Structure formats: C-alpha cells, structure tokens
C-alpha cells in the first residue's frame, strides 16, 4: 500500500481546500479532512511511505554497523571486545528517546537528522545480540574444526559465524522496524522529526492535537495506522521466533526417536 500510494491515493496530498477543512469521514473523504482541508486517507498513505522508509533504512544501517562490530567483538574478544562493548554500553546508558531527542535537538529538524539519531540509538541492540550469539557460536566445535584445517578468521566469521547468528538478528530486526516506526512517530509528534508539512504519521498526530475534541479523526486514523503497522512487524517477529523455536523443538523430539 505504501508503494502504491501515488496510484491508490484519491487526492494529492498537497491539495489544500480550506472550504473543506475538518470534514468528518464521509464518502468523499473516507477518513475526513484535516485543518487545511487535505484528505486524511491520502496523507495516511503517503505517510506510510515515509514511516516504512525510515523503519527499513534505519534498521538496515543499524544492523550492518551493529552486526559487524558485534561479531568482531565476540569473535576476537580481548581488548577489542572491551572497547566495543564499553562503547555500546555508553550508548545504551542513555534512554534511547533522550539520546535521539538530544541529537535531533542539536542537529536540527529534518528527516535525515532524525534517521541519523535513530541509527545512533538502534545499532547497539544489534551489536549486543550479534556479540552474544557470536560468543556462543565461537565455542562450537565446527568453528574450531575449520580453523584446525587451516581456515582463516575471516572465512570462519563469514561462512560459519554469520549464518549461525542470523536468526536472532533477523528477529530483532523485524521487531526493530516496529520500534523505529514508533520512535520516529514519537519524535515527529513532539515536533522534532520531519517538517510538519511532510506527510508523516507522527507529524499528522501532532497537527491534530489541537482538534482532539472537535475533530478526533485527525489523530485517530494516523494513530491507528502506526499501531497496525507496528503490530504487523511485532506479530511477524513473534511468528518468526516461534517458527524457529518450533523447528528446534521438533528436531529435538525427532532426535529422541
């Protein structure tokens, strides 16, 4: 839906019509109109684009940074591990919202800065997960065995460690997209994310605050959409985790017979 916003959307999101402002949901405007007379359904559709874009890009970049550092730290251990993990701890010491807020506050408003702030907050999650799983994989016989037939560290990390830590990382990534969408919406809601004129769910909610009692649909629809999309990612992540658990359980059971 996010991809086809341009085709599906009944109106142009820039189209303002002050005669039509604050219309309740009707057959013309399925979700009503906002204070500038823009169609909320259209806005929500374009907003989906922004939110999902932010979610995917932030998670992908954080994943790349976090997994690289986490695997290096876990695999080599020693002082490298100490440095990377203390760094991670330091970033984790800030409650994520505060760190993101502070960074956007000093960098200034805007989509790019907000994404940068979210990446700075999010990579630590992946670093931690990747390091923990790597430590686990490192003790496994197959790592030692392939080292013992002469494999280099790089080979072992790419061919053995990465494939074996990827499932928890992917689960985290799926849940992470939901979290990033929530956080991005939160920042925009506080007026610190994207520019208010951009169609973004959080920003729409912010704009609707003033009309919460008179025109609640201004907030309700973007809010519901945030919730549904986050719910979808969480649900998918849970399902992924259950599926992986299940697979392990079945093989365990079959192993017994």
């Amino acid at each position, binding site marked *: 839906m996010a991809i086809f916003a341009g085709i599906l959307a009944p109106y142009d999101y820039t189209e303002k019509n002050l005669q039509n402002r604050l219309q309740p949901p009707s057959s013309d405007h399925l979700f009503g109109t906002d204070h500038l007379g823009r169609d909320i359904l259209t806005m929500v559709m374009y907003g989906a684009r922004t939110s999902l874009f932010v979610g995917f890009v932030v998670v992908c970049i954080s994943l790349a940074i976090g997994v690289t550092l986490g695997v290096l730290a876990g695999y080599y251990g020693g002082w490298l591990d100490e440095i990377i993990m203390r760094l991670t701890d330091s970033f984790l*010491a800030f409650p994520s*919202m505060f760190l993101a807020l502070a960074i956007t506050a*000093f*960098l200034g408003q805007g989509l790019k800065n907000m994404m940068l702030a979210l990446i700075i907050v999010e990579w630590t999650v992946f670093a931690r997960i990747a390091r923990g799983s790597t430590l686990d994989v490192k003790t496994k016989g197959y790592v030692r065995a392939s080292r013992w037939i002469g494999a280099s560290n790089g080979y072992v990390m790419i061919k053995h460690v990465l494939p074996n830590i990827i499932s928890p990382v992917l689960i985290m990534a799926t849940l992470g997209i939901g979290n990033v969408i929530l956080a991005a*919406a939160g920042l925009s809601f506080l007026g610190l994310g994207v520019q208010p004129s951009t169609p973004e769910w959080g920003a729409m909610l912010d704009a609707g605050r003033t009309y919460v009692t008179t025109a609640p649909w201004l907030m309700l629809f973007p809010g519901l959409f945030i919730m549904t999309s986050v*719910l979808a990612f969480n649900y998918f992540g849970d399902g992924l985790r259950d599926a992986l658990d299940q697979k392990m359980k079945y093989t365990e059971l079959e192993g017994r017979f």
Partner: protein
Amino acid sequence: MLKEYFIRRALYLLPVLIFISFMSFSLIYIAPGDPAEIMMTSPSGGYDEAAVEAFRIAHGLDQPFYIQYLNWLKHAAVGDFGYSYMSEQSVFETVLDAFRNTLTLSVLALAIALVIAIPLGVVSALKRNTVVDDACRFGALLGVSMPNFLQAYLMIILFSVIIHWLPASGFGHGTDISYMILPAIVLGTGSAAIMMRMIRSSMLDVMGKEYIQTARGKGMSEKIVIIRHALKNALVPVITVIGLSIGFLLNGSVVVETIFGWSGIGNLVVNSILSHDYMMVQGSVLFVAIIFLLINFFVDIVYVWANPEIRYDRNS
C-alpha cells in the same frame, strides 16, 4: 563471587561514565555552527554579538577542545551543569526537581505494570495455547504496538472529555494524585505489555525444565509445583525486566509528560529543545544517562544476589 562481580561491574562503569560525559559534551559540537552562537541564540533567532563574545570567553570556548572538555567535566563532576540561558536557574537544580516528579510517576507506573504483568504472564504461560493465553498474548502485542501518544489521547477523550472522571492534564503541584493516574496508567500498561511477554516466556521455560517433572514425580500437587518450584525460579528474571522497564518508562515519559503537562524530566527536555535552551538539554540528558546507568548497575547486582548459583562461589 558477589564481591568480585561487584568490583568488576564497578570498573566497567568508569569508562562508560567518561564516555557518556564526553558524548554529552560533544553534543554541542555536532550542531552546525558556532556553539557560542547556538547557546546564545534566543528563540526569536537573533543574537547579540557582544553577548556571544562574552559567552565565548566566559566558557573558555576560545581554548582547545580537550581543555574545554576537562573544564566542563570538572564542573559537571560536582553537579555544576551551568545555568539555563532562559531562566538563569541552575540547570542541576531544575533537572533534579523535574526528575523527582518523573520518579514519582515512574514508581506508580511500575507498580501498575507489575500488578498487571505478573499474574497475567504466569496465567498465560500455564494456560498455554488456550483462549486465555491467546487473549493475553494479543493484549500484550497490542500494548507493545500501541503508540503511547495515541493511547494517551484515547484515555483523555474517554476519562476526561466523555465521563469527566479525571483531569486531562496538569500537574496539581505534585500532590494531587488524580493528575497522576492517567499518565501512570498510560506508562504502566505499556511496560506491563513488555513485562508480561517476558514473564510468560520465562515461566514457559521453567515449566519445561526437568526439575518440574521431578517435583511432580515426588507427588507434589500441581499448586505446589507451580508456586514453590516454578514461580520462584521464573520470577528471578523479572528483576532484569524491571531494569529494562525503567528504560521504557523514561523513554515513555518524554511523550506522556508532554501530553499530560506533567513537569517531569521528559517535559523539561522537550520544552528546553523547543525554546533552544541547550545548556538545559545537555544537563538533563547527561543526568538521565547517569541515573539510568546507576539503576542498571544496581539491578544487575540485585539480580546476581537473587541468584544463589552466582551468589555462592561454585568452588567453596
């Protein structure tokens, strides 16, 4: 063992503290433009050349970066975070006041979260794959996915606008509990959802352990098996969950306090950013980070202490 762990954790704390102070300090430098100009920019956008110059000298901004940092650190270490440009009040005192309010709210929210999460999490695990479990899991999923601002407004509409039970927003001088109820519920239910999921999986994990089967094999009734053998072990991880929830509560406080007009630290940060009071932002962020770090340190120690296996030395 506990002592050694304590010392090791405390040693880890040191580089982290230095690093977070450094990060907070360099926040000003990541901003495009001259820090003095940024600091002295009034909300209207203009600034006074003389004031900027005075600020630059007063704060030693003409000196090299590391000297500035060391100077700043020297002050920060004794609780001197500077003065707000806006109100000219001590940043540290303002932050401390705000944090006290946040703490009250968080404690109430945490209590709400625990009261909801523990029984539901345990019941959900015990009634695994039944309607009860499905309902609990769906509720938790909903709670995790619900943006707190949406929930906040829904609650305001319901409790304040439609049935007029509770005030929509405000602070009530920090004593009137009715102002606290709505924000605490919003914060509490959110973290209850996270906690519940963790308690459920921890409980499921324990119920699958062999010693549970042993206890059944001894002829213990299911009630005793659950209460004495399972619950005790399942609830130890809850300590870590509380640590995590504190992070969640602090994060949530930013939005929730802003909506409900509760003068806590989240509200303070947002207002300071909007009014370009950078000194205040820097101070609050550093303060929250240190507090959060210490809480997690404490939680870790308690966790180890509650775990007899780590508490005692294996070799003795």
